[in-house]
């Protein structure tokens, strides 16, 4: 039998400005309109894996339970399929809220470090910054190096299949002038004045 846990929440555990901060991100302004119908969770293909359903995440955000929200696996399981976004009867752009929460979690260093999804996001981010384009194969390799997802992942078989069909190329894709892109990206202010992650 698992340990009995005390679940009461005190007002002091709430972050009074959290909802407002999230709502400041583009697309998130209707957050407070949510009337908890659960459509988002119902249409979400991944809600069945989430520790909090999307509806609960919206509610917890609104109530300022920042820690619960940012430590939740929900935001990292969101695959950006936008099903909740289009079906929400109150035009809460849930996908955008998830993005805002992901950014916030990365900034606060709250994501699980060996959890591969945020790592992928960061590796992707760095690769594009460097070359201007993405080479999928190298992204996978980097991802493998950073996490320990070898086990239970028959990557070698897939790799062979891709090689056979001529889709596994180790040539690095790049723009002609990635330095120009870097210049533009550097001109763009890092979010909320925080240091750039990459």
């Amino acid at each position: 039998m698992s340990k009995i846990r005390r679940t009461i929440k005190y007002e002091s555990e709430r972050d009074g400005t959290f909802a407002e901060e999230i709502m400041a991100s583009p697309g998130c302004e209707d957050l407070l309109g949510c009337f908890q119908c659960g459509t988002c969770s119902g249409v979400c293909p991944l809600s069945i894996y989430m520790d909090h359903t999307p509806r609960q995440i919206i509610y917890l955000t609104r109530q300022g339970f920042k820690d619960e929200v940012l430590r939740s696996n929900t935001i990292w399981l969101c695959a950006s399929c936008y099903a909740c976004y289009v079906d929400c009867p109150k035009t809460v752009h849930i996908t955008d809220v998830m993005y805002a929460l992901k950014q916030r979690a990365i900034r606060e260093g709250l994501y699980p470090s060996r959890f591969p999804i945020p790592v992928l996001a960061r590796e992707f981010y760095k690769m594009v910054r460097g070359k201007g384009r993405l080479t999928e194969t190298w992204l996978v390799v980097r991802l493998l190096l950073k996490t320990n997802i070898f086990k239970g992942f028959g990557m070698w078989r897939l790799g062979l299949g891709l090689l056979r069909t001529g889709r596994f190329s180790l040539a690095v894709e790049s723009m002609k002038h990635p330095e120009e892109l870097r210049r533009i990206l550097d001109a763009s202010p890092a979010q909320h004045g925080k240091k750039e992650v990459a």
Partner: protein
Amino acid sequence: MKFSYFPGCSLKGMGGAYETSLIAVMEALSVQLEELDDWNCCGATAYMSVDESKAFTLAARNLAIAEKKTDDLLAPCAACFLVLQKTQKYIKDYPEVGRVVRESLRAGGYDYAGSTRIRHPLDVIVNDIGLDTIKKTVKHPLKGLKIAPYYGCQVVRPYATFDHQDYPVTMDNLLKALGADVVHYPLKTKCCGGSLTGTLPEVGARLSNILIREAKRQGADLITTLCPLCFFNLDSYQDKMEGPEKITMPITYFTQLMGLAFGMPSSKLGLKRHIIPILPILKERQVAIA
């Protein structure tokens, strides 16, 4: 008809068959595609997870290049299509986003007014070129081939307006025009797992598997897609499929099927670049292959 063409990283990588077949089909329909000069990655879903203003700036650089050429911009990859549209919309709707993006672009000597029209080839083929022209171009109708039309998520929603977001029919109509049988496919806009197949395969691959299993249940011979990531997910993880009986389900791009129906040689359509081979089912259904 002429378009600026934004291939995106996937079509230059694992989605090569999509690019090959798209270019071949568009040529057959006398649509000129001109690849955007020194384009960069759209940022996909990953960039937005890290920094949203840089993500918008990244995508907007492509839009700015396209705007100078004044042609509409064709983006075949679902993720690119969505990200470019989203970027354009948010630059317009959120003045602060627009200001930051424009300011950053200026560092590269770009100016972006926001007028680029971003189109998906499916929309262009069905709504601009029209099914009548398609029907006329068909040489070998795909008779007897039962197809599950799979749209995935990011082409039909949330910003595209050319079809219903939960119940699209554009590709159904196109496939019918090619002579194929379209099966009832209630999962046509469900998520394939996206990048989760790579990061959390037990979660991501399961979604792809559900899609394949249901297509089989509905009697489909193959699934057709319009997104390189969907294609990859559906095609690559079938050996991981759980369940009592082993199912294999060939996956194609819709442009490959168009090419087949137009009588193009399989070499021009990248038909060999599938993990689940596609030729056997075509032979079985007696689809003529040039």
